[in-house]
Protein backbone atom coordinates (compact mmCIF):
# COMPACT_ATOMS: atom_id res chain seq x y z
CA UNK A 1 0.00 0.00 0.00
CA UNK A 2 2.82 2.36 0.87
CA UNK A 3 4.48 1.63 -2.44
CA UNK A 4 1.27 2.22 -4.33
CA UNK A 5 0.79 5.51 -2.53
CA UNK A 6 4.30 6.53 -3.40
CA UNK A 7 3.79 5.69 -7.05
CA UNK A 8 0.54 7.64 -7.14
CA UNK A 9 2.17 10.59 -5.41
CA UNK A 10 5.12 10.43 -7.80
CA UNK A 11 2.80 10.29 -10.77
CA UNK A 12 0.74 13.24 -9.51
CA UNK A 13 3.86 15.27 -8.79
CA UNK A 14 5.30 14.62 -12.24
CA UNK A 15 2.02 15.54 -13.97
CA UNK A 16 1.59 18.71 -11.93
CA UNK A 17 5.22 19.70 -12.48
CA UNK A 18 4.89 19.15 -16.23
CA UNK A 19 1.56 20.96 -16.51
CA UNK A 20 2.68 23.97 -14.47
CA UNK A 21 6.17 24.33 -15.93
CA UNK A 22 4.97 23.50 -19.43
CA UNK A 23 2.20 26.07 -19.19
CA UNK A 24 4.58 28.78 -18.02
CA UNK A 25 7.05 27.92 -20.77
CA UNK A 26 4.38 28.03 -23.47
CA UNK A 27 3.07 31.34 -22.12
CA UNK A 28 6.47 32.96 -22.33
CA UNK A 29 7.19 31.64 -25.81
CA UNK A 30 3.86 33.16 -26.90
CA UNK A 31 4.75 36.45 -25.24
CA UNK A 32 8.19 36.46 -26.84
CA UNK A 33 6.59 36.03 -30.28
CA UNK A 34 4.16 38.84 -29.54
CA UNK A 35 7.01 41.06 -28.45
CA UNK A 36 8.79 40.39 -31.72
CA UNK A 37 5.56 41.34 -33.50
CA UNK A 38 5.67 44.72 -31.79
CA UNK A 39 3.57 44.30 -28.67
CA UNK A 40 4.85 45.99 -25.54
CA UNK A 41 4.99 43.31 -22.84
CA UNK A 42 5.36 44.55 -19.26
CA UNK A 43 6.20 42.41 -16.24
CA UNK A 44 2.62 42.84 -15.06
CA UNK A 45 1.41 41.45 -18.41
CA UNK A 46 3.68 38.42 -18.01
CA UNK A 47 2.43 37.72 -14.54
CA UNK A 48 -1.22 38.24 -15.44
CA UNK A 49 -1.05 36.04 -18.54
CA UNK A 50 0.89 33.35 -16.66
CA UNK A 51 -1.81 33.28 -14.01
CA UNK A 52 -4.56 33.23 -16.64
CA UNK A 53 -2.93 30.31 -18.46
CA UNK A 54 -2.46 28.38 -15.23
CA UNK A 55 -6.21 28.63 -14.81
CA UNK A 56 -7.28 28.40 -18.46
CA UNK A 57 -4.78 26.04 -20.03
CA UNK A 58 -2.94 24.04 -17.34
CA UNK A 59 -5.90 21.82 -16.33
CA UNK A 60 -6.42 20.63 -19.91
CA UNK A 61 -2.69 20.18 -20.37
CA UNK A 62 -2.52 18.22 -17.11
CA UNK A 63 -5.24 15.86 -18.30
CA UNK A 64 -3.46 15.21 -21.60
CA UNK A 65 -0.09 14.83 -19.88
CA UNK A 66 -1.58 12.44 -17.31
CA UNK A 67 -2.91 10.18 -20.04
CA UNK A 68 0.43 10.24 -21.84
CA UNK A 69 2.57 9.76 -18.73
CA UNK A 70 0.42 6.83 -17.60
CA UNK A 71 1.38 4.93 -20.72
CA UNK A 72 4.95 6.23 -20.90
CA UNK A 73 5.83 5.40 -17.29
CA UNK A 74 4.24 1.96 -17.59
CA UNK A 75 6.43 1.31 -20.59
CA UNK A 76 9.40 2.75 -18.68
CA UNK A 77 8.71 0.34 -15.83
CA UNK A 78 8.61 -2.60 -18.23
CA UNK A 79 11.86 -1.49 -19.82
CA UNK A 80 13.53 -1.39 -16.40
CA UNK A 81 12.30 -4.90 -15.75
CA UNK A 82 14.32 -6.22 -18.65
CA UNK A 83 17.20 -3.78 -18.94
CA UNK A 84 19.42 -2.71 -16.10
CA UNK A 85 19.39 0.96 -16.90
CA UNK A 86 19.44 3.81 -14.40
CA UNK A 87 15.94 4.56 -13.16
CA UNK A 88 16.23 8.31 -13.72
CA UNK A 89 17.47 7.85 -17.25
CA UNK A 90 14.63 5.52 -18.18
CA UNK A 91 11.84 7.71 -16.83
CA UNK A 92 13.40 10.93 -18.11
CA UNK A 93 13.47 9.43 -21.59
CA UNK A 94 9.92 8.16 -21.12
CA UNK A 95 8.71 11.64 -20.10
CA UNK A 96 10.52 13.38 -22.93
CA UNK A 97 9.42 10.81 -25.48
CA UNK A 98 5.84 11.06 -24.30
CA UNK A 99 5.74 14.84 -24.76
CA UNK A 100 7.50 14.64 -28.13
CA UNK A 101 5.04 12.03 -29.38
CA UNK A 102 2.09 13.98 -27.99
CA UNK A 103 3.17 17.17 -29.77
CA UNK A 104 3.73 15.23 -32.99
CA UNK A 105 0.32 13.56 -32.86
CA UNK A 106 -1.50 16.79 -32.10
CA UNK A 107 0.18 18.40 -35.08
CA UNK A 108 -0.52 15.44 -37.38
CA UNK A 109 -4.20 15.42 -36.46
CA UNK A 110 -4.52 19.17 -37.02
CA UNK A 111 -3.20 19.35 -40.58
CA UNK A 112 0.42 19.96 -39.66
CA UNK A 113 -0.19 22.80 -37.23
CA UNK A 114 0.89 22.80 -33.57
CA UNK A 115 -2.14 23.26 -31.35
CA UNK A 116 -0.05 24.55 -28.45
CA UNK A 117 1.06 27.96 -29.66
CA UNK A 118 4.20 27.98 -27.54
CA UNK A 119 5.53 24.96 -29.41
CA UNK A 120 5.45 26.49 -32.89
CA UNK A 121 9.21 27.08 -32.80
CA UNK A 122 11.84 24.38 -32.39
CA UNK A 123 12.96 26.05 -29.16
CA UNK A 124 9.39 26.06 -27.85
CA UNK A 125 8.88 22.39 -28.66
CA UNK A 126 12.26 21.44 -27.19
CA UNK A 127 11.43 23.27 -23.98
CA UNK A 128 8.31 21.11 -23.53
CA UNK A 129 10.26 17.95 -24.35
CA UNK A 130 12.98 18.96 -21.90
CA UNK A 131 10.38 19.58 -19.22
CA UNK A 132 8.96 16.15 -19.99
CA UNK A 133 12.37 14.71 -19.17
CA UNK A 134 12.49 16.65 -15.91
CA UNK A 135 8.98 15.46 -15.01
CA UNK A 136 10.02 11.87 -15.73
CA UNK A 137 13.08 12.33 -13.54
CA UNK A 138 10.86 13.67 -10.74
CA UNK A 139 8.72 10.55 -11.02
CA UNK A 140 11.83 8.34 -10.88
CA UNK A 141 13.26 10.21 -7.93
CA UNK A 142 10.09 9.98 -5.85
CA UNK A 143 9.54 6.29 -6.45
CA UNK A 144 13.18 5.55 -5.58
CA UNK A 145 13.67 3.95 -2.16
CA UNK A 146 14.36 6.52 0.52
CA UNK A 147 17.23 4.51 2.06
CA UNK A 148 19.72 2.02 0.81
CA UNK A 149 18.47 -1.47 1.28
CA UNK A 150 14.82 -0.54 1.39
CA UNK A 151 12.55 -3.48 0.71
CA UNK A 152 11.19 -4.28 -2.75
CA UNK A 153 13.50 -1.83 -4.41
CA UNK A 154 13.05 -3.38 -7.85
CA UNK A 155 9.33 -3.74 -7.55
CA UNK A 156 8.84 -0.12 -6.66
CA UNK A 157 10.72 0.87 -9.74
CA UNK A 158 8.42 -1.08 -11.93
Amino acid sequence: VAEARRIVAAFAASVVAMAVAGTLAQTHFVLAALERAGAPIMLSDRLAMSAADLVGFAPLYAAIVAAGFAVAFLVGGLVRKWLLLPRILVFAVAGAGCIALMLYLMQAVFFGIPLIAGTRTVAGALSQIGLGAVAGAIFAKIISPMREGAPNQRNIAT
Partner: protein
Amino acid sequence: VNVLRTFMIAAVTLFAASVPANAYEVEEVAGGLDHPWSLAFLPDGAFLVTERSGQLRRISVDGQISEPIAGVPDVLARGQGGLLDVMLAPDFATSGVLFLSYAYGSTAENGTALMRARLQEDRLVDTQTIFQAQPKRGGQHFGGRMALLDDGTILLTVGDGFAFRENAQNRSDHLGTIVRVAPDGSVPEDNPFAHEDGSAPEIWSHGHRNPQAILVDPSNGRVWAHEHGPRGGDELNIIRRGGNYGWPILTGGVDYSGARISPYGLDRADEFDFDNPAHVWTPSIAPGGMTLYNGDAFPEWRGNLFVSALAGQALHRLVLDDDKVVFEEVLLQDLGARLRDVRTGPDGFLYLLTDHDDGKLLRVRP
Protein backbone atom coordinates in the same frame (compact mmCIF):
# COMPACT_ATOMS: atom_id res chain seq x y z
CA VAL B 1 -28.68 65.62 -30.85
CA ASN B 2 -27.67 62.66 -28.73
CA VAL B 3 -31.20 62.30 -27.39
CA LEU B 4 -32.60 62.37 -30.92
CA ARG B 5 -30.00 59.84 -32.05
CA THR B 6 -30.82 57.54 -29.14
CA PHE B 7 -34.52 57.85 -29.94
CA MET B 8 -33.93 57.01 -33.60
CA ILE B 9 -31.77 53.98 -32.74
CA ALA B 10 -34.44 52.79 -30.33
CA ALA B 11 -37.08 53.25 -33.03
CA VAL B 12 -35.01 51.35 -35.57
CA THR B 13 -34.41 48.60 -33.03
CA LEU B 14 -38.08 48.33 -32.16
CA PHE B 15 -39.06 48.26 -35.80
CA ALA B 16 -36.38 45.70 -36.58
CA ALA B 17 -37.52 43.51 -33.73
CA SER B 18 -41.09 43.64 -34.90
CA VAL B 19 -40.49 41.75 -38.17
CA PRO B 20 -42.53 38.57 -37.87
CA ALA B 21 -40.50 35.37 -37.71
CA ASN B 22 -42.86 33.59 -40.08
CA ALA B 23 -42.52 36.20 -42.82
CA TYR B 24 -40.26 33.98 -44.85
CA GLU B 25 -39.84 30.39 -45.91
CA VAL B 26 -36.77 28.36 -46.80
CA GLU B 27 -36.77 26.13 -49.86
CA GLU B 28 -34.10 23.86 -51.32
CA VAL B 29 -32.86 24.79 -54.78
CA ALA B 30 -30.30 21.98 -55.04
CA GLY B 31 -28.65 19.38 -52.83
CA GLY B 32 -25.83 16.86 -53.02
CA LEU B 33 -23.07 19.45 -53.17
CA ASP B 34 -19.68 18.68 -51.62
CA HIS B 35 -19.04 21.42 -49.08
CA PRO B 36 -20.15 24.30 -51.31
CA TRP B 37 -18.22 27.46 -50.49
CA SER B 38 -19.43 30.27 -52.68
CA LEU B 39 -21.97 31.15 -55.33
CA ALA B 40 -22.48 33.68 -58.08
CA PHE B 41 -25.61 34.54 -60.03
CA LEU B 42 -25.38 34.10 -63.79
CA PRO B 43 -27.25 36.48 -66.11
CA ASP B 44 -29.60 33.71 -67.27
CA GLY B 45 -30.81 33.05 -63.71
CA ALA B 46 -28.56 30.02 -63.12
CA PHE B 47 -25.93 29.79 -60.39
CA LEU B 48 -22.22 29.08 -60.30
CA VAL B 49 -21.20 27.24 -57.15
CA THR B 50 -17.75 26.28 -55.91
CA GLU B 51 -17.21 23.09 -53.96
CA ARG B 52 -14.26 23.14 -51.57
CA SER B 53 -13.00 19.82 -52.92
CA GLY B 54 -12.22 21.57 -56.22
CA GLN B 55 -15.28 21.60 -58.49
CA LEU B 56 -17.03 24.56 -60.06
CA ARG B 57 -20.58 23.69 -61.06
CA ARG B 58 -23.46 25.39 -62.77
CA ILE B 59 -26.86 24.94 -61.17
CA SER B 60 -29.81 25.68 -63.41
CA VAL B 61 -32.81 27.70 -62.34
CA ASP B 62 -34.70 24.49 -61.65
CA GLY B 63 -31.87 23.02 -59.55
CA GLN B 64 -30.11 20.74 -62.04
CA ILE B 65 -26.44 20.41 -61.13
CA SER B 66 -23.93 20.24 -63.97
CA GLU B 67 -20.81 18.14 -64.25
CA PRO B 68 -17.70 20.00 -63.04
CA ILE B 69 -16.70 22.86 -65.29
CA ALA B 70 -13.32 22.13 -66.87
CA GLY B 71 -10.27 24.33 -66.50
CA VAL B 72 -10.51 24.93 -62.77
CA PRO B 73 -7.05 25.17 -61.16
CA ASP B 74 -5.58 22.35 -59.10
CA VAL B 75 -6.37 23.14 -55.50
CA LEU B 76 -5.11 22.01 -52.13
CA ALA B 77 -8.29 20.42 -50.82
CA ARG B 78 -7.11 19.80 -47.28
CA GLY B 79 -8.15 21.22 -43.94
CA GLN B 80 -9.83 24.53 -44.74
CA GLY B 81 -8.20 24.72 -48.14
CA GLY B 82 -9.72 24.04 -51.52
CA LEU B 83 -11.66 25.90 -54.16
CA LEU B 84 -13.04 28.95 -52.38
CA ASP B 85 -14.73 32.04 -53.81
CA VAL B 86 -16.17 32.79 -57.24
CA MET B 87 -16.89 36.32 -58.42
CA LEU B 88 -18.13 37.51 -61.80
CA ALA B 89 -16.58 40.52 -63.50
CA PRO B 90 -19.01 43.44 -63.94
CA ASP B 91 -18.96 42.84 -67.69
CA PHE B 92 -19.39 39.08 -67.35
CA ALA B 93 -22.49 39.05 -69.54
CA THR B 94 -20.40 40.04 -72.52
CA SER B 95 -16.87 38.99 -71.55
CA GLY B 96 -17.48 35.81 -69.54
CA VAL B 97 -14.68 36.88 -67.18
CA LEU B 98 -14.76 35.59 -63.64
CA PHE B 99 -12.38 35.24 -60.73
CA LEU B 100 -11.71 32.21 -58.53
CA SER B 101 -9.85 32.12 -55.23
CA TYR B 102 -8.36 28.89 -53.98
CA ALA B 103 -5.69 27.25 -51.86
CA TYR B 104 -2.68 26.23 -53.92
CA GLY B 105 0.32 24.03 -53.18
CA SER B 106 0.94 21.14 -50.80
CA THR B 107 0.48 20.69 -47.08
CA ALA B 108 4.13 21.59 -46.64
CA GLU B 109 3.97 24.72 -48.76
CA ASN B 110 0.73 26.44 -49.70
CA GLY B 111 -1.19 29.67 -49.79
CA THR B 112 -4.14 31.61 -51.17
CA ALA B 113 -4.28 32.32 -54.89
CA LEU B 114 -6.49 34.21 -57.30
CA MET B 115 -7.26 33.17 -60.87
CA ARG B 116 -8.81 35.15 -63.67
CA ALA B 117 -10.57 33.11 -66.36
CA ARG B 118 -13.26 33.28 -68.99
CA LEU B 119 -16.26 30.97 -68.84
CA GLN B 120 -16.99 29.56 -72.26
CA GLU B 121 -19.92 27.15 -72.18
CA ASP B 122 -18.78 24.35 -69.88
CA ARG B 123 -15.12 25.20 -69.51
CA LEU B 124 -12.80 27.93 -68.29
CA VAL B 125 -10.44 29.36 -70.88
CA ASP B 126 -7.75 32.06 -70.86
CA THR B 127 -6.94 31.13 -67.28
CA GLN B 128 -4.33 33.27 -65.56
CA THR B 129 -3.13 33.22 -61.96
CA ILE B 130 -3.08 36.88 -61.02
CA PHE B 131 -2.07 36.61 -57.37
CA GLN B 132 -0.39 34.08 -55.10
CA ALA B 133 0.24 34.70 -51.42
CA GLN B 134 3.69 33.73 -50.24
CA PRO B 135 3.67 30.09 -49.20
CA LYS B 136 3.38 28.77 -45.67
CA ARG B 137 2.83 25.29 -44.27
CA GLY B 138 -0.28 23.67 -42.83
CA GLY B 139 -3.82 23.50 -44.08
CA GLN B 140 -5.70 26.20 -42.18
CA HIS B 141 -6.76 29.85 -42.48
CA PHE B 142 -6.73 30.76 -46.15
CA GLY B 143 -9.30 33.56 -46.01
CA GLY B 144 -10.16 33.58 -49.71
CA ARG B 145 -13.18 35.86 -50.12
CA MET B 146 -13.23 38.60 -52.78
CA ALA B 147 -14.90 41.95 -53.32
CA LEU B 148 -14.82 44.37 -56.20
CA LEU B 149 -14.09 48.03 -55.52
CA ASP B 150 -15.65 50.81 -57.58
CA ASP B 151 -12.41 51.35 -59.47
CA GLY B 152 -12.44 47.75 -60.72
CA THR B 153 -9.68 46.52 -58.41
CA ILE B 154 -10.18 43.38 -56.34
CA LEU B 155 -9.88 42.93 -52.60
CA LEU B 156 -8.95 39.40 -51.52
CA THR B 157 -8.79 38.22 -47.93
CA VAL B 158 -5.79 36.13 -46.89
CA GLY B 159 -5.77 34.27 -43.59
CA ASP B 160 -2.90 34.11 -41.16
CA GLY B 161 -2.16 30.42 -41.78
CA PHE B 162 -3.10 29.66 -38.14
CA ALA B 163 0.44 28.91 -36.93
CA PHE B 164 1.81 32.21 -38.21
CA ARG B 165 -0.47 34.64 -36.44
CA GLU B 166 2.26 37.15 -35.59
CA ASN B 167 2.87 37.57 -39.33
CA ALA B 168 -0.41 39.49 -39.46
CA GLN B 169 1.56 42.35 -37.89
CA ASN B 170 4.43 41.92 -40.32
CA ARG B 171 3.81 43.46 -43.71
CA SER B 172 6.63 41.62 -45.44
CA ASP B 173 4.31 38.75 -46.38
CA HIS B 174 0.60 38.34 -47.14
CA LEU B 175 -0.43 36.32 -44.10
CA GLY B 176 -3.23 37.93 -42.10
CA THR B 177 -3.95 40.63 -44.67
CA ILE B 178 -6.44 41.86 -47.21
CA VAL B 179 -4.71 42.45 -50.52
CA ARG B 180 -5.75 44.61 -53.46
CA VAL B 181 -4.83 43.80 -57.02
CA ALA B 182 -5.98 44.91 -60.43
CA PRO B 183 -7.96 42.43 -62.57
CA ASP B 184 -4.82 41.79 -64.62
CA GLY B 185 -2.81 41.01 -61.49
CA SER B 186 -0.84 44.22 -61.41
CA VAL B 187 -0.43 46.10 -58.15
CA PRO B 188 -2.26 49.43 -57.99
CA GLU B 189 0.14 52.29 -57.46
CA ASP B 190 -2.01 53.75 -54.73
CA ASN B 191 -1.92 50.70 -52.50
CA PRO B 192 -0.95 51.97 -49.03
CA PHE B 193 2.34 50.09 -48.76
CA ALA B 194 3.19 49.85 -52.46
CA HIS B 195 6.26 52.01 -52.02
CA GLU B 196 7.29 50.99 -48.51
CA ASP B 197 10.55 49.06 -48.30
CA GLY B 198 10.06 45.58 -46.92
CA SER B 199 6.28 45.54 -47.35
CA ALA B 200 4.35 43.36 -49.76
CA PRO B 201 2.92 45.92 -52.19
CA GLU B 202 -0.43 44.15 -52.55
CA ILE B 203 -1.40 44.71 -48.89
CA TRP B 204 -4.48 46.89 -48.37
CA SER B 205 -4.97 46.20 -44.65
CA HIS B 206 -3.43 43.83 -42.11
CA GLY B 207 -3.74 42.51 -38.57
CA HIS B 208 -6.42 40.01 -39.63
CA ARG B 209 -6.84 36.41 -38.50
CA ASN B 210 -9.05 34.57 -40.98
CA PRO B 211 -11.38 36.95 -42.80
CA GLN B 212 -13.93 34.91 -44.75
CA ALA B 213 -16.31 37.55 -45.98
CA ILE B 214 -15.86 40.97 -47.49
CA LEU B 215 -18.25 43.24 -49.36
CA VAL B 216 -18.60 46.80 -50.52
CA ASP B 217 -21.64 48.89 -49.65
CA PRO B 218 -22.53 50.36 -53.05
CA SER B 219 -24.28 53.32 -51.46
CA ASN B 220 -21.18 54.75 -49.79
CA GLY B 221 -18.21 52.58 -50.77
CA ARG B 222 -17.74 51.33 -47.21
CA VAL B 223 -16.01 47.94 -47.05
CA TRP B 224 -17.26 45.47 -44.47
CA ALA B 225 -15.42 42.27 -43.61
CA HIS B 226 -15.74 39.72 -40.87
CA GLU B 227 -13.16 37.33 -39.56
CA HIS B 228 -12.99 34.27 -37.40
CA GLY B 229 -11.62 34.84 -33.95
CA PRO B 230 -10.05 31.94 -32.09
CA ARG B 231 -12.26 30.80 -29.20
CA GLY B 232 -14.33 33.96 -28.99
CA GLY B 233 -13.59 37.28 -30.61
CA ASP B 234 -15.12 36.84 -34.07
CA GLU B 235 -15.11 40.34 -35.54
CA LEU B 236 -17.05 42.49 -37.96
CA ASN B 237 -14.77 45.24 -39.24
CA ILE B 238 -14.95 48.25 -41.49
CA ILE B 239 -11.94 47.95 -43.72
CA ARG B 240 -10.01 51.08 -44.50
CA ARG B 241 -6.96 51.59 -46.66
CA GLY B 242 -3.83 50.83 -44.64
CA GLY B 243 -5.76 49.74 -41.56
CA ASN B 244 -4.29 47.49 -38.86
CA TYR B 245 -6.92 45.37 -37.12
CA GLY B 246 -4.73 44.29 -34.24
CA TRP B 247 -4.54 40.50 -34.49
CA PRO B 248 -2.92 38.82 -32.59
CA ILE B 249 -1.89 41.59 -30.20
CA LEU B 250 -5.45 42.65 -29.51
CA THR B 251 -8.16 40.00 -29.51
CA GLY B 252 -11.41 39.17 -27.81
CA GLY B 253 -10.70 35.43 -27.87
CA VAL B 254 -8.41 32.82 -26.39
CA ASP B 255 -6.69 29.88 -28.03
CA TYR B 256 -8.60 26.64 -28.64
CA SER B 257 -6.45 25.12 -25.89
CA GLY B 258 -7.76 27.71 -23.44
CA ALA B 259 -4.41 29.54 -23.37
CA ARG B 260 -4.30 33.29 -23.76
CA ILE B 261 -3.14 34.63 -27.10
CA SER B 262 -2.22 38.02 -25.76
CA PRO B 263 -2.38 39.92 -22.49
CA TYR B 264 -4.41 42.51 -24.37
CA GLY B 265 -8.13 41.94 -24.56
CA LEU B 266 -10.51 44.25 -26.40
CA ASP B 267 -11.02 46.09 -23.11
CA ARG B 268 -7.51 47.49 -23.60
CA ALA B 269 -8.08 48.66 -27.17
CA ASP B 270 -7.43 52.28 -26.20
CA GLU B 271 -3.78 51.42 -25.50
CA PHE B 272 -3.20 50.92 -29.24
CA ASP B 273 -3.86 52.68 -32.49
CA PHE B 274 -5.56 49.69 -34.07
CA ASP B 275 -8.85 49.76 -35.98
CA ASN B 276 -11.43 48.36 -33.61
CA PRO B 277 -14.22 46.00 -34.63
CA ALA B 278 -17.71 47.30 -35.29
CA HIS B 279 -19.14 44.17 -33.73
CA VAL B 280 -17.78 41.15 -31.85
CA TRP B 281 -19.17 37.67 -31.35
CA THR B 282 -18.13 35.92 -28.16
CA PRO B 283 -18.66 33.00 -27.97
CA SER B 284 -17.69 32.49 -31.57
CA ILE B 285 -20.28 31.89 -34.25
CA ALA B 286 -17.60 31.13 -36.91
CA PRO B 287 -18.88 33.58 -39.54
CA GLY B 288 -18.88 32.15 -43.06
CA GLY B 289 -20.40 34.54 -45.58
CA MET B 290 -22.06 37.93 -45.61
CA THR B 291 -24.40 40.00 -47.72
CA LEU B 292 -25.69 43.54 -47.48
CA TYR B 293 -29.35 43.13 -48.29
CA ASN B 294 -30.60 45.52 -50.94
CA GLY B 295 -33.39 43.50 -52.51
CA ASP B 296 -37.09 44.18 -52.84
CA ALA B 297 -38.48 40.90 -51.52
CA PHE B 298 -37.97 41.91 -47.89
CA PRO B 299 -38.29 45.70 -47.77
CA GLU B 300 -37.98 45.73 -43.97
CA TRP B 301 -34.54 44.11 -44.25
CA ARG B 302 -33.04 46.59 -46.68
CA GLY B 303 -29.72 47.93 -45.49
CA ASN B 304 -29.22 45.03 -43.07
CA LEU B 305 -26.12 42.88 -43.03
CA PHE B 306 -26.70 39.13 -43.03
CA VAL B 307 -23.90 36.94 -41.69
CA SER B 308 -24.04 33.17 -42.08
CA ALA B 309 -22.58 31.16 -39.22
CA LEU B 310 -20.82 27.81 -39.42
CA ALA B 311 -20.37 26.71 -35.80
CA GLY B 312 -23.29 28.94 -34.82
CA GLN B 313 -25.52 27.22 -37.41
CA ALA B 314 -27.69 30.27 -37.96
CA LEU B 315 -28.14 33.42 -39.99
CA HIS B 316 -27.42 36.66 -38.14
CA ARG B 317 -29.28 39.78 -39.22
CA LEU B 318 -27.50 42.96 -38.22
CA VAL B 319 -29.30 46.28 -38.28
CA LEU B 320 -26.90 49.13 -38.95
CA ASP B 321 -26.93 52.76 -38.00
CA ASP B 322 -24.24 54.16 -40.26
CA ASP B 323 -21.09 52.35 -39.06
CA LYS B 324 -22.63 50.79 -35.96
CA VAL B 325 -24.55 47.61 -35.33
CA VAL B 326 -27.61 48.57 -33.31
CA PHE B 327 -29.58 45.32 -33.35
CA GLU B 328 -28.92 41.66 -34.01
CA GLU B 329 -31.43 38.93 -34.74
CA VAL B 330 -30.54 35.26 -35.04
CA LEU B 331 -32.52 33.44 -37.74
CA LEU B 332 -32.77 29.92 -39.19
CA GLN B 333 -31.42 28.12 -36.13
CA ASP B 334 -34.07 25.47 -36.77
CA LEU B 335 -32.24 24.41 -39.95
CA GLY B 336 -29.46 22.92 -37.83
CA ALA B 337 -26.99 23.49 -40.65
CA ARG B 338 -23.56 25.03 -40.92
CA LEU B 339 -24.15 28.03 -43.17
CA ARG B 340 -21.11 28.73 -45.33
CA ASP B 341 -22.37 31.55 -47.47
CA VAL B 342 -25.25 33.96 -47.86
CA ARG B 343 -25.97 36.13 -50.89
CA THR B 344 -28.68 38.43 -52.12
CA GLY B 345 -30.04 37.19 -55.43
CA PRO B 346 -31.07 39.42 -58.32
CA ASP B 347 -34.64 38.39 -57.47
CA GLY B 348 -34.29 39.89 -54.00
CA PHE B 349 -34.32 36.52 -52.24
CA LEU B 350 -31.56 35.39 -49.93
CA TYR B 351 -29.52 32.38 -50.98
CA LEU B 352 -27.59 30.18 -48.58
CA LEU B 353 -25.03 27.41 -48.90
CA THR B 354 -24.80 24.75 -46.23
CA ASP B 355 -21.37 23.37 -45.39
CA HIS B 356 -21.84 19.61 -45.38
CA ASP B 357 -20.92 16.52 -47.41
CA ASP B 358 -24.47 16.78 -48.71
CA GLY B 359 -24.39 20.56 -49.01
CA LYS B 360 -27.44 22.47 -50.20
CA LEU B 361 -28.28 25.65 -52.01
CA LEU B 362 -31.22 27.16 -50.17
CA ARG B 363 -33.49 30.07 -51.00
CA VAL B 364 -35.17 32.31 -48.42
CA ARG B 365 -38.29 33.95 -49.80
CA PRO B 366 -41.38 35.66 -48.42
